[in-house]
């Protein structure tokens, strides 16, 4: 009986000591807590440009006997050019002459085009002659240019430019169907 009462007294004493410690030092922190940390985020946005061309363009005679053939297309593009520096370019180059042989020969200069209606940048001026050996101008894009969303970027998204082609109708061409491929390239500086 005395042994049992002693244990009980010891327990009560220990609890009283613990309570005194908490009372003097405050209630200990809970297991969950809130920590505030700061992290710097950095994004490197490079200049970028992309172009989309229609799959094909069909040329048709413009008038009567041996009138030139004509065709047109609308090119779509999206751009984010560098804030400063030289202009960027949208160009075109024929990958080769019309095929099969016997038809128009692009390298002789019968294929010309004009540009208009660029919604971002300046379209090529006058009449350009398509080439198989060099890229020729379609549109020049200034620095700090961007597509879509309104000022300071363009309102249009995507941007567009119209090309009107003219192909000589030389009697020397053999009668038949011919195809050639044009590659449009957007180059950002």
């Amino acid at each position, binding site marked *: 009986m005395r042994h049992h009462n002693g244990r009980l007294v010891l327990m009560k004493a220990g609890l009283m000591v613990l309570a005194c410690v908490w009372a003097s030092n405050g209630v200990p922190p809970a297991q969950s807590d809130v920590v505030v940390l700061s992290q710097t985020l950095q994004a490197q946005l490079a200049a970028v440009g992309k*172009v989309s*061309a229609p799959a094909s363009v069909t040329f048709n005679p413009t008038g009567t006997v041996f009138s030139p053939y004509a065709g047109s297309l609308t090119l779509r593009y*999206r751009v984010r050019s560098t804030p400063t520096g030289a202009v960027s370019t949208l160009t075109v180059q024929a990958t080769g002459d019309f095929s099969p042989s016997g038809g128009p020969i692009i390298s002789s200069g019968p*294929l010309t085009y004009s540009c208009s209606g660029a919604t971002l940048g300046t379209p090529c001026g006058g009449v350009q002659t398509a080439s198989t050996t060099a890229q020729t101008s379609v549109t020049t894009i200034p620095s700090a240019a961007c597509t879509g969303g309104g000022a300071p970027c363009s309102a249009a998204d995507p941007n567009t430019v119209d090309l009107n082609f003219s192909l000589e109708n030389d009697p020397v061409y053999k009668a038949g169907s011919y195809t050639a491929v044009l590659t449009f390239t957007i180059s950002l500086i």
Partner: protein
Amino acid sequence: MRNMGKLFGPIVLGLLSSASLFAQFAPTGNTTLQVNVGVEAGIRVDTAITNLLSPSTFADYVGSTNFTYKIRTSSGGSGTITMQITSDFAPAGGPSVAAPPDPTDTLAYTCSLIAPGTACAGSQTASTTAQTGVATFGGDAHSTKLGNGPNSVAWTLSNDPLYDTGAYNATATFTISAT
């Protein structure tokens, strides 16, 4: 539920194929140019008024009409240049192609042509009722870009004393075709 399963395949195929119809944006884009070059032919008469003159007393009247042609025939095709008097000499009383005062009175011509055309052979008699030959072309015939010329038709008109004196005009129409 079973029907929905049957539709799944076609729907997936449709979505996959529709995606390829749109031109994708990329650093470069390609367009195929397509042109059908057909057979064509054109003629330009370079002598607006052909004066027929008699070099000596009652010698036949002679003169020349020049023309230039452009032509492209197919590899298995051909071409022709023909001529017809579409308006007989007027006013009446002078020469006539359709009803000359003497049946031996004629308006005849010979042809001179630059290749690839072949000139009519010998002397031809002009007609108001039918086209008569000036030139022929074979398959895969091509002129230059500026046209081939000068080609010519040399006229000879009978100088019949039965004609009344005066000035008379007729119209010759040239036609070119290609296949």
